[in-house]
């Protein structure tokens, strides 16, 4: 069987080239082929937001994104959002206010909120709520997640 043509993109800042079958989605490529397991698989249907990554800086559902479509683009996962040592101010805020419980939705929220705060450094509560409305959390009732994003914004994240 001829190997499928490669996809070339930047992954967490590094040039990456990997052979991908046409029907493969980005989530499978990241988790199963590249072993970047920080991105979570919650529904495979684009409903839960656990698999959110940034494509060219925009939050995208990797379970609905064909891997071939990131050719030539920049993909950032939770691993790329996290600093080499310690935590980002947003991540620190999540920890401090208890915005994680089971933590399975957390990478998706952190990725979404990182991009949101970059574009909206001084958001209103309503803007935050709208920004995270594509991510489901069953543990926290969202309140501490919203609080964490507010705290990070106030701290100049």
């Amino acid at each position, binding site marked *: 069987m001829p190997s499928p043509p490669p996809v070339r993109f930047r992954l967490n800042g590094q040039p990456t080239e990997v052979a991908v079958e046409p029907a493969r989605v980005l989530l499978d490529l990241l988790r199963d082929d590249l072993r970047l397991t920080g991105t979570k698989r*919650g529904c495979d*249907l684009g409903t839960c937001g656990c698999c959110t990554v940034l494509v060219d800086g925009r939050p995208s559902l990797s379970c609905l994104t064909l891997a071939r479509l990131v050719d030539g683009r920049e993909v950032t996962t939770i691993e790329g959002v996290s600093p080499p040592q310690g935590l980002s101010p947003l991540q620190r805020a999540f*920890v*401090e206010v208890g915005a994680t419980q089971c933590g399975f939705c957390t*990478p998706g929220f952190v990725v979404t909120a990182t991009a949101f705060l970059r574009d909206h450094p001084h958001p209103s509560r309503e803007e935050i709520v709208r920004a995270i409305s594509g991510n489901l959390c069953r543990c926290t009732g969202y309140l501490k997640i919203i609080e964490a994003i507010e705290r990070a914004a106030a701290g100049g994240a």
Partner: protein
Amino acid sequence: MATGPATDYRLIGGRIPYVEGPLKVTGRAEYTDDLSRPNQLVGRLLRSPWPHARLRSIDVRAARELPGVYAVLTGEKYPTPFGVLPITHDETAIAVGKARYIGDIIAAVAAQDERTAERALALIRVDIEPLPDYADPRDGVGKVAEPIHARGLNGSNIQKEVVQHFGDVDAAFARAAHTVRVKGTFAGVTHAFTEPMATIAEATPDGRLTVWSATQVPHYLHRALSEVLGIPMHRIRVIKPEVGGGFGGKSDPLPHEIVCAALAIETGRPVKILFDREDVFYTNHGRHPTQNDIRIAVDADGRILAYDIDATIDGGAWSSFGTVTTYYNGVLSMGPYRVPNFRYHGRRVYTTKPPNGAMRAHGGTNLRYSVEVGLDRLAEATGIDPFDLRDRNALPPNSTTVNQFRITSTSFRACLAAARARSGWDEKFRRLPYGKGIGLGCGFYISGSNSPIHFTPVMPQSTVHLKVDMDGGIAVHSMQADIGQGSNTLLAVIVAEVLGVDLARVHVQRVDSDVSPVDLGSYSSRVTFMMGNAAREAAQQLLGQLLRAAAALTGRPVDDLAVGRERYWSRTDPSVGVSFEEALRKAMEESGALVASGAYRSPKLGGSFKGARAGTAPAYSFAAYVAEVDVDVETGVYGVSRVWAAFDCGRALNRLAVEGQIEGSIHMGLGQVMGETMSYRGTRLMNPSLLDYKIPMPQQMPKVEILLVGDDDPEGPFGAKEAGEGPLIATLPAVGNALYDAIGVRFTDLPITPDKVLKGIDQRTKEGRPWKGA
């Protein structure tokens, strides 16, 4: 460092961030599907498309011959029945003889990859004889043509029937000043945790089996694996990675966990089974759809004289926790009130639908809704304020209920007072404009089931081991299962508090049955109370060793020594003291690494009648919630704008975690009251996805004010009680009663969707009833 007598706890009662938080916010926390084993195969399940069918033959030859397929299993290879309760073993790993619901597992495949596994499943030929299906539990209470299980009561589909009568209910109703009857129908709801189930199993040539699984109760899984596979428990190792939420849905040992292990044994290779979201919905074990018919009698002063309850509970295809559900549904409806006469007739009936089981506030939710709506109506009938009515019926501390539950601490009346004052109830109730309303709902819940499932309360329900070595780090081992609720953090906090050490020294180890002593896991809101006590006892034992060493170093008697931060010092001369590390080094001279073990044993509780142990707990939590709603009377769409949540969990050990549990519980409670529904057409589940099964969005969350008013519980660790499930219960009736205040319509069925709201308004208008009270 200044040291003085400690007047307060250093960590207990604070806001302690979860110890694994930094791993979770960076995606570094490891869940089962993040793990993989070398040479791992993919396991896949063939699910029944028939609700009820005799399996005449299953032809797996073509599937077996497909290149890349390593094993195909059907039910007869491992037919030993299992189930979470030893008295109702009615499940098998794979269906034997019959399929009992759409989604029942009828074959399993292990293959080199997903695609091959799926192709193999498609090659399996199943010859069936269709059998009658049973969607409505009411159709299964009498003799049926084809009982779903042979163990059904007298040829019916009744899995469990409970009849209880305490006091004299008929006499109480005869002398009642007011009575109320509430009939309610409750749709099933499901846990909807974000992490789909996943299991990895590996059988190794040394004769051992290792299973990694997303489970809330590693110990029950351990037992079920041993029973069904016929392997002694000591040759099985169960490991619990991080678990992405459970809420009861990962507390039964589940068939796919056993199938995964069986495939690993068959193939000699590691096998992973990862669920997709449909698998999760078909596995369900969510809250039971129920039909309640209750009557409450009160005297002229609004004092409760009696409850008379009838309930039909839709069990789905298996027993699961159903016997407990059937009892809980009755007995957990009494507290927080004194009910002197009580009659309950409940039946849980098998249906050919996905099994129902334990879901957060198991057995304490649906009937509670009916009771609280009934009390709201009685308050109106008697002209007594809903708060006053509940206050005068409050169970007193240190009392015994009519069914012999032991009540020790209760701050229920303080909950009422706090919720009333903070919500501005007296200015708002029946005074808000049309479409706006305020309502009260109350609840109580067990702080740990007093009865361990597999043994009488002789063995400890929880054991915690500690080890300190030359690094000065304290390793904590326990089979308690952190599923996000913060029990690892609580373990660390308790150990650090007792020993006086920094939290960073305490390392809670991953649950691994080879090294973790048994704790029965995360269900029945037992962890804080039981594990907490075990952890405290273990830490006190360790502290004793350290203080003896400190005494030897300082020349002071042990009882003169106090615990400071990383320091043990003399009460009589605070300038004399040693550091934790100095004490540790001295103590290790004698014994090497220090070890300690603590355990929690249930007290003897409950009466001696049949079913007396169901619902007994060493303590109970109490709640009084007020909700404010805002109804668009043109569309029926409504929102819950505020919730005041007054909760008695004794002493809150980690305020951050208690708040998180309450906020999350309110979210889940709102989901059930506002719309979540396991929607069936006949026996077919119509919405097995998070797109069609909608949990509340951030926009739907109210502003929540949490009021923690509990007094210390006499037996809880540092005075604590549960806060994981009880906080859900009061949410539902608070909203239901607030809707009545807003639009004058009583809602007895859940969920309350906008179409029902509109219908209710129309009906009220047609009847010419006013929208507010009188």
